[in-house]
């Protein structure tokens, strides 16, 4: 990327921070499922995906500074940029599955848009992460398509789409201070966020169409209520999530694994 345009770099770093915070929160939330998933393979699947997402967070924070732990855990709540969807605890497995499907579908689109980034180090992380997303998405889609063939699955899962899709749209929004136009013009991402969101919505529509369902999508740009996560306003769930992340660190800041 052209270092001669510092404001573009600054915007790109803000965007990467938001993506990293998404990964950190979703990874931490998925880790809750160890030993309590509905079946053994699902324990392993959700917590393996959790490890992957935390690894993606580490790689993204690593683009922003050397002290990854300080970036991940050491900020004030208002300095995080996570989308509120990722902060939801989702202690019901159906909720976790629908959130997982929406999130990993969105991630696949996001990583693809960054894979040829003019910020070469970001492009390398995106290509690396994209290679891991395939198994996440197959896991989510496989379970979703099977469960939507049953009445119980449809009645429990489909209402969750309308509950979560407005929140999920925030995944395609930028923190304040990022110029979307500049990120596109400078080649940090290769397609617009509204194009990315449209691609994601279409994939979600396709996944539930077989169940005769059509999610209610908010109009593009009409998700200001949920966009507060990107602006630094935390959801009600963040404090407990963050306290869990830093529990060991708070007890002993020098603890080593």
């Amino acid at each position: 990327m052209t270092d001669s345009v510092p404001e573009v770099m600054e915007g790109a770093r803000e965007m990467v921070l938001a993506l990293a915070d998404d990964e950190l929160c979703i990874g931490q939330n998925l880790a809750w499922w160890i030993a309590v998933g509905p079946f053994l393979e699902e324990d392993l699947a959700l917590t393996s995906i959790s490890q992957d997402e935390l690894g993606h967070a580490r790689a993204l924070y690593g683009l922003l500074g050397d002290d990854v732990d300080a970036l991940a855990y050491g900020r004030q709540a208002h300095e995080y940029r996570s989308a509120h969807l990722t902060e939801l605890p989702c202690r019901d497995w159906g909720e976790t599955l629908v959130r997982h499907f929406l999130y990993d579908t969105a991630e696949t689109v996001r990583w693809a848009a960054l894979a040829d980034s003019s910020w070469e180090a970001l492009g390398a992380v995106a290509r690396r992460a994209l290679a891991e997303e395939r198994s996440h998405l197959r896991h989510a889609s496989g379970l979703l398509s099977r469960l939507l063939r049953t009445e119980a699955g449809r009645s429990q899962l489909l209402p969750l789409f309308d509950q979560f899709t407005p929140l999920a749209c925030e995944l395609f929004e930028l923190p304040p201070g990022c110029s979307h136009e500049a990120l596109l013009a400078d080649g940090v991402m290769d397609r617009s966020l509204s194009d990315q969101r449209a691609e994601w919505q279409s994939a979600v529509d396709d996944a539930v169409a077989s169940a005769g369902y059509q999610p209610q999508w908010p109009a593009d740009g009409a998700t200001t209520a949920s966009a507060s996560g990107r602006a630094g306003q935390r959801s009600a769930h963040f404090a407990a999530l963050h306290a869990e992340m830093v529990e060991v660190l708070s007890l002993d800041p020098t603890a080593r694994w």
Partner: protein
Amino acid sequence: MSRAVPAGVVAAVRRSVSQVCDPEYPEVTIAELGILEGVSSSDCGSTVRIELVPTMLGCPALDVIARDVTDAARRACAGADVSIEVTFVDDPVWTPDRIAPSAVGFLAREYSVAVRSRSAAASCPICGNDALEHRSDFGPTPCRSVEWCPSCRNPIEVVGRVDLPAAMGAAPASPAAMGAAQASPALA
């Protein structure tokens, strides 16, 4: 102020870090597993640069591997005035194809762990049957999936998720194509 690192030191570091073993398989070296990408003298200053390729970005053993590599490198250049830089690189991407054939045989024999690569289908490390049935992409570590051998009726751990190597090429056209191509057989 910039001093080159003597070639002998680089070679000694390379020999030493090549012998570092994987925390999960303590008899197999990171060189055999394809985790060690290269050892070179840095362009600027007296630094030996060691590049490692993570099997998965979320592998929890990365810190341990980096520590062991750093220790081995320091031992190798004791007395020499050089600094050590250990870096995990995102490019190239690790795939099971990077595992040396000798290590593939060892993992099968000693750990009953199979390896899936682009060049060879995974075969059962216990009975040799090469028609394993996929069970789950997610096994005991992020880099291992779970299969089932219908011949000897054992669950088999396989290094490499089923389509990780295939994902190295062109990015898939759409998330729908990635996700819907094949339903997970985990609930079969």
